[in-house]
C-alpha cells in the first residue's frame, strides 16, 4: 500500500509537469512557433523553488503563505483517490464526492491567497475566480451525479469499472467541455489574465510560494483530466504491465489536454467574465441534465441506437 501511494504521488507530479511542457509545445506549434523544452515546467518549478520569497507588508501572512500549501496538499490527496493507470485507486477511502470537493480546493486557495495579498489586482482576480468556479462546476457536477446514479455507487473503483461514455455520451461531452475552464487557460483565463490584471491572484506571490501555487494548478489540470478519463473511459483498459498502463493513461490525458485545452488556447482570445457563466450554464449543463432525465426516465438511447453493436 505504501508502495502504491508513493508510485501514485510521483507519477502525478511527473505527469502533471510533463503535461504542461506538452501543452506549451502544442500551443506554440499551433502558432507556428517552436515552443519550449518538454521539461520546461520542471525548470520553472525548480527555478522558482530556488528563489527568494517575498511577503508584502499589507497581507495577512498566515493566509498568504498557507494558500499554496493548501492547494498542493489537497491535490496530493486527490491523486491517491482517483484511479491512476490502474483498476483501483492507491487508497480506497474516498469517493467521487470527496474528489469533487478536493478538485475545488486549488481555486479556493487562489481566492484566499488573492484576497489576502492586499493587492487590488489580487482582489479582482479572486472575484473572477469565484465566477469561473461556479460556472464550470455546475455542468461537471451534474454530469458526475448522472454517472453515479447510473453506476448505483459513489465509489470511484465501482464507477470506473464501466466506460460510461458508451452509456451516457451527453454527460461525457458536458464533463469534457469543462476541461478548458478547469485548466484556466486562454478563453477562460479571466482570473489570471496576465495582460489585463497582471496575473490576478498570483500577482504578489514570488519564489517557492508561486511555485507551489502553480504546481497545485498543474496537478489540478492533470487530475481533472484523469478523473474524466477514469470515469468515462473506464479502467478496464489497464490490464497490462504497470509501465504500459502508465503510458496508456498518459497518452489518453495528453490527447484530452491537447485537443480540448491546448488547441483551444492557441486559437482564441480571452472571453468576458459574465459570458462564462452564460456559456457553461446553457449548453453543457443542458446536455448533462438531458442525460440525467433520460436515464431516470429509463430511456437507454445508446442501446436503442447501437444495440446491434452490443452496447
Amino acid at each position: 500500500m505504501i508502495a502504491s501511494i508513493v508510485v501514485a504521488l510521483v507519477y502525478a507530479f511527473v505527469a502533471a509537469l510533463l503535461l504542461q511542457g506538452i501543452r506549451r509545445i502544442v500551443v506554440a506549434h499551433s502558432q507556428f512557433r517552436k515552443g519550449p523544452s518538454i521539461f520546461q515546467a520542471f525548470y520553472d518549478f525548480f527555478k522558482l523553488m530556488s528563489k527568494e520569497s517575498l511577503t508584502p507588508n499589507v497581507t495577512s501572512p498566515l493566509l498568504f503563505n498557507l494558500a499554496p500549501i493548501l492547494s498542493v496538499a489537497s491535490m496530493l490527496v486527490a491523486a491517491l483517490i482517483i484511479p491512476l493507470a490502474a483498476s483501483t485507486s492507491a487508497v480506497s477511502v474516498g469517493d467521487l464526492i470527496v474528489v469533487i470537493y478536493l478538485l475545488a480546493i486549488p481555486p479556493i486557495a487562489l481566492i484566499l491567497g488573492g484576497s489576502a495579498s492586499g493587492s487590488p489586482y489580487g482582489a479582482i482576480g479572486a472575484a473572477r475566480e469565484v465566477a469561473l468556479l461556479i460556472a464550470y462546476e455546475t455542468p461537471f457536477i451534474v454530469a458526475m451525479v448522472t454517472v453515479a446514479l447510473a453506476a448505483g455507487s459513489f465509489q470511484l473503483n465501482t464507477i470506473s469499472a464501466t466506460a460510461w461514455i458508451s452509456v451516457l455520451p451527453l454527460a461525457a461531452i458536458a464533463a469534457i467541455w469543462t476541461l478548458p475552464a478547469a485548466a484556466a487557460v486562454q478563453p477562460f483565463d479571466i482570473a489570471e489574465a496576465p495582460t489585463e490584471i497582471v496575473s490576478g491572484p498570483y500577482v504578489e506571490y514570488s519564489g517557492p510560494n508561486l511555485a507551489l501555487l502553480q504546481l497545485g494548478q498543474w496537478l489540478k489540470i492533470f487530475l481533472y483530466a484523469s478523473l474524466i478519463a477514469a470515469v468515462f473511459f473506464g479502467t478496464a483498459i489497464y490490464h497490462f504491465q504497470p509501465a504500459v498502463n502508465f503510458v496508456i493513461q498518459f497518452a489518453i490525458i495528453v490527447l484530452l489536454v491537447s485537443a480540448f485545452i491546448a488547441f483551444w488556447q492557441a486559437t482564441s482570445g480571452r472571453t468576458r467574465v459574465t459570458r462564462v457563466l452564460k456559456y457553461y450554464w446553457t449548453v453543457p449543463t443542458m446536455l448533462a441534465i438531458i442525460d440525467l432525465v433520460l436515464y431516470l426516465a429509463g430511456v437507454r438511447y445508446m442501446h436503442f441506437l447501437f444495440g446491434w453493436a452490443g452496447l
Partner: protein
Amino acid sequence: MFRARSPWVYFINTGSCNGCDIEVLAIQSPRYSAERYGVLRVGSPRHADVLVVTGPVTKRMEDRLTMIYEQIPNPKAVVAVGSCPTSNGIFDGGYSLTGPLDTVIPVDVYVMGCPPRPLNIVSGILKAAKMLDSRRKGKGGRRTARFDEAMSKETTVDLKFQSSDNVPGAEE
C-alpha cells in the same frame, strides 16, 4: 542550471522612444520565438528573474524604476536594451534625465544598437540568465542608495489603492 533555462522577463520603458519596445515585442513572435529558451514575459516584478530596461532614465521614472528593481526577488539580473540606457544615446544632456541606467541600478548586460536587433536582445537575456546560476538566493540584495533615498522622502509613488478624489479629473 534551472535558472538559466527559465528566465522570466519583466520589461520596463523608462522614457524610451518606443523603437526598442517594438524590437523587444518582436522576440516573442514566431520568427524569433524566445519561448524556445524558456523566456516568458511576466506582468508582475515579483515573478521576474530578469529586468529588461529600455530608454534613458527620466526623473519621473527614477523612483519607480528603483522600486520595481527592489521588488524583484533575488537572484536577479538587469539587461539594458539599446543605446539610451547605456549612454543616454541621442537624449544625452536632456534636462529631464538623471543619467544612464547604471547610475541608478546595477546593470549586468548591455545590448547595443539603436534599436538592437531582436536576436541580440534574446542573446542578452540569455547571458543575464546564465549569470543567475552563480548567484545566491540570500546574497547580493543589492539595495541602491537611491532606493533608500526614494523610500525616505515623500515620494509621488503611492502603492496603496488610491481613492477616487486623488485621481486628477475625477470631479467631472
